[in-house]
């Protein structure tokens, strides 16, 4: 993502980041939606199916599409946040959790349908879901935004195609549905491959070799400079920790002008401090200190694009929820945001109208009539 962004392709809709509602505390390992599809329920510290308090009920004893535990990921993660505010979650050394209870499914069904869930829960939190509920909490999961591209996976930079989570072809809108990343990969991966092959075979004049060599040398110098830099005051692990903290607290499940403002300031500061990162490892063999430093630089740019896109969208839509602008505002913000890279400043944000064909935006209604 950062490579395309730095090359001048905007990052689209970066403020939309999906939290998966049921990750394991500490590790963030996902407990699949399938466990709720089979009939698993979410309860708070009082054993109460709290989702019924957030327009997701009624609490049928059986799983129902678009209701309760099978509501969308953004709503479930938001409900967790509210429960935590009310003091109705369970405190653990790895933060607040609620319980995902599968016990009523029985050992046979759990082993047949959810063997991986049982294995993960026993291994990583010491809980056998046959006998005890699994502690879970929302965890950052998927970036709906990404490299701006069209339905042929083509970007504004000739010859650059993007598909998968790094791309934003806009099939996910503001909140991706489970499993749609596979669609993105298969459908748009194939289109990207075909498009790139067609372009390559139909283009007669290829790029000037000398120019390419010059670019390669510039890149090599940049990376070599990073490896050899001495007297730097910053460490990769230190900056990464600060980035994680500011993004989680400022640009998490719920956001405000203040929290996002803090994140924007911190990310801009981290971007500048990144210029003083010094590597401990100067080796040319499998240098993971270097790899992590390059990754950190990319993450800082992408994180800043998220924070700045989010503070500019003064409404709530899908996974982007503002406590200070709680309503969706189609009049002003039925638009894609486009973050343009600037090496020395925060990104410039522009907007583009959303192209709507068959699915008109409507009110999001979940739950369902009493059976």
């Amino acid at each position, binding site marked *: 993502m950062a490579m395309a962004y730095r090359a001048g392709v905007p990052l689209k809709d970066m403020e939309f980041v999906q939290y998966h509602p049921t990750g394991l505390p*500490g*590790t963030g*390992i996902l407990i699949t939606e399938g466990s709720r599809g089979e009939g698993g329920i979410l309860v708070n510290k009082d054993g109460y199916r709290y989702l019924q308090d957030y327009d997701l009920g009624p609490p049928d004893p059986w799983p129902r599409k678009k209701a309760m535990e099978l509501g969308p990921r953004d709503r479930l993660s938001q409900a967790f946040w509210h429960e935590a505010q009310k003091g109705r979650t369970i405190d653990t*050394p790895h933060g607040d959790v609620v319980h995902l209870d599968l016990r009523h499914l029985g050992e046979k069904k759990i082993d047949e349908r959810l063997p991986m869930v049982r294995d*993960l829960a026993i*291994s*990583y*939190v*010491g809980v056998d879901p046959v006998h005890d509920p699994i502690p879970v909490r929302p965890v950052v999961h998927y970036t709906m935004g990404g490299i701006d591209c069209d339905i042929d996976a083509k970007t504004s930079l000739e010859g650059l195609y993007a598909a998968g989570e790094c791309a934003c072809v806009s099939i996910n809108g503001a909140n991706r549905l489970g499993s749609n990343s596979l669609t993105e990969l298969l459908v748009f991966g194939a289109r990207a491959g075909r498009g790139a092959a067609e372009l390559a075979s139909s283009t007669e004049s290829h790029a000037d070799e000398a120019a390419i060599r010059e670019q390669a040398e510039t890149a090599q110098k940049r990376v070599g400079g990073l490896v050899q830099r001495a007297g730097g005051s910053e*460490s*990769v*692990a230190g900056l990464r920790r600060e980035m994680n903290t500011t993004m989680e607290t400022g640009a998490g499940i719920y956001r405000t002008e203040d929290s996002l403002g803090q994140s924007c300031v911190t990310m801009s500061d981290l971007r500048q401090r990144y210029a003083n990162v010094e*590597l*401990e*490892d100067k*080796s*040319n*063999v*499998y*240098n*993971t*200190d270097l790899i992590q430093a390059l990754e950190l630089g990319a993450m800082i740019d992408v994180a800043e694009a998220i924070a700045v896109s989010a503070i500019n969208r003064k409404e709530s839509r899908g996974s982007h929820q503002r406590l200070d602008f709680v309503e969706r505002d189609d009049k002003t913000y039925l638009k894609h945001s486009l973050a343009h890279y600037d090496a020395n400043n925060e990104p410039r944000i522009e907007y583009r109208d959303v192209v709507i064909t068959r699915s008109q935006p409507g009110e999001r209604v979940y739950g369902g009539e009493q059976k």
Partner: protein
Amino acid sequence: MSERQVELEILRYNPETDDEPSFQTFQVPCPEDWVVLDAINYVKDNLDRSLSYRWSCHMAVCGSCGMMINGEPTLSCKSFLRDLPDKIRIEPLANFPIERDLVVVMDDFMNKLGSVKPYLIPSEQKAVENGSYLQSPAQLKKFKQYTLCINCTLCYAACPQYAHNEGFVGPAALALAHRYNLDSRDVGRSARQDVVASNEGIWECSFVGACSDVCPEHVDPAGAIQQTKIASTLDYFLDLLPGRNQ
């Protein structure tokens, strides 16, 4: 959360500066629910940035963090400190050349994996509009266990035969060949047989079963190899029947 002081003895090797590998010791304060990978990450982030090792998913899916932990080939992300003593010896996977520290050279495995053609070879290529290749749950069940391989190569580090003869095609590659041979949509068995049933294929296995013992996904490569031996033996005798090779 209660913490415990753990001593990690890690094998270090940098080919640019070291003549041979040697151990380096690190003291790590570890919360009780950590895995070995967490402790190694602590070392990298806080004690020595130059420590090199592979890892990615931290949930036993990607298969990249295999190492020898107290002498056993193990995924470090699934090796819990609560099951280990206070002193832990960590080395790169056995039977592979060391590239650096805990990183091994995987080329031999990658070549062998490719040599067994581990992909579907259908009898005819269907266009998308002609629909999918159907399979019943019973047909899937025949080979599903063998699809769980994550290419972590713990089985190669455990295999006494691979240690003895590096030409051996080895457990994971042979189990994957078996997986495709058993697939009702596949007709590639004869194309794989040259490698699978060669001297360095299944017949090199002496059925120690160490591969299946260390497999983090319970794939049972040893079982796959023995089944392949039976099928190949049958081939051999059937070939002796008159009229078979005309």
